[in-house]
């Protein structure tokens, strides 16, 4: 049986469902996390790595990945204010309405990751789309081999989900390394770029699957560093962002070569993306 939300999306994919902001948290200097409740009262189901089109009414729509726990709790999005839509979204407060279309896209390869070592590499707010995958990896820990999170941020104060990252660090069943480009104040952790952490990483390349999310330039260099470690291009998964309008493969806004990011992605293997990464922003 399809849920009411899923049935409506299926029938009218361009019409947003109404949700309300339940809570809003400041996560980084320019990023906020919104907890949403569907007006229908239903739970919102999605797979790690999928995204929604969020509407700030009267302003517009933007593609935003789900950053919450797919197994539990409210619908969560973490948004960086960069332009009109994302600014309007991040300024919504408790009780405000918001439009939700989705979930869209192919998420992280959770099934393929089973039985393998998983290296999660996040750059900046790229940790947001990876967080649902981390919840799944840690929630079903026995299904996976060694789990490692490598996280690069610009500065210590720009580390998103800081308390959670600290909690993961304290766990014994995941290796967490954080590195910042620019150390300030009392930071005693790693300083340098995230690729640095990969070169120091002990990996069993044949057993390893990588999930990478961050700006494209970061993902390119991370992929190359993983390939240098012997990880296969087909075992490196990246989440791509390109400008989106319809999110259902109709408008062509997100097209990258023969690929539609909204429909065929946003998660792809490096093997598939490598030739396309040379195509700059459209």
């Amino acid at each position, binding site marked *: 049986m399809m849920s009411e939300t899923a049935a409506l999306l299926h029938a009218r994919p361009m019409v947003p469902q109404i949700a309300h902001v339940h809570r809003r948290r400041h996560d980084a200097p320019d990023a906020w996390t919104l907890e949403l409740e569907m007006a229908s009262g239903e739970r919102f189901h999605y797979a790690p790595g999928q995204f929604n089109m969020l509407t700030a009414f009267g302003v517009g729509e933007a593609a935003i990945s789900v950053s919450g726990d797919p197994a539990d709790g409210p619908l969560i999005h973490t948004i960086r204010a960069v332009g009109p839509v994302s600014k309007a979204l991040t300024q919504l407060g408790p009780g405000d309405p918001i439009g939700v279309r989705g979930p869209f896209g192919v998420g992280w390869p959770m099934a393929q990751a089973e039985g393998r070592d998983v290296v999660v590499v996040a*750059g900046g707010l790229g940790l947001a789309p990876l967080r649902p995958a981390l919840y799944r990896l840690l929630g079903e820990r026995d299904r996976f081999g060694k789990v490692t999170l490598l996280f690069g941020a610009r500065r210590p104060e720009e580390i998103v989900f800081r308390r959670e990252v600290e909690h993961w660090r304290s766990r014994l069943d995941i290796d967490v390394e954080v590195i910042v*480009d620019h150390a300030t104040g009392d930071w005693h952790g790693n*300083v340098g*770029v995230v690729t640095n952490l990969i070169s120091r990483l002990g990996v069993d390349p044949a057993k390893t699957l990588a999930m990478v999310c*961050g700006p494209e330039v*970061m993902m390119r260099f991370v992929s190359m560093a993983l390939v240098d470690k012997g990880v296969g291009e087909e075992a490196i998964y990246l989440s791509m962002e390109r400008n989106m309008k319809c999110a259902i493969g109709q408008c062509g806004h997100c097209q990258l070569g023969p690929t539609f990011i909204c429909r065929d992605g946003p998660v792809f293997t490096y093997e598939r993306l490598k030739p396309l990464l040379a195509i700059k922003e459209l």
Partner: protein
Amino acid sequence: MENLERILSDHPFFHGVNKGFVELAAGCAKNARFEAGDFIFHEGEAADQFYLVREGRVALQVAAPGRGAATFLTLGAGEVFGVNWLVPPYRWVYDAKALERCRLIAMDAKCLRGKCEADHSLGYDIMKRLMPVLIDRLHETRLQFLDLYGSHG
């Protein structure tokens, strides 16, 4: 001595170096240990050592006006630092500080330069090992400048 040779050939920087070279290089090496917070060297001093990290983490820092010491790179086990030993005027251009207890191999720069000069094969081998480290660091520095995370993922 025998022990130092083994330690050297176990370090990634010397992996695969032929035995004769390791023996030569070991003649310039000694173990060194620093506690958390110790400075290993200071900017402006003579670069008379080349360091290989065996254990612990080291921060390379430059004092920035109004900001105090700014760390621009941290290094850990298996890595090397202090490459100024190779290029005149052999002077440190940053501070190196132990972030935790560190066990290092310190190689006497004058001794190592002398051996590289006397045996160009050894010198060339060492150069081939240092060059990728320098190129990688240059590339990483460029990425740091690019401000990779400015636009989000």
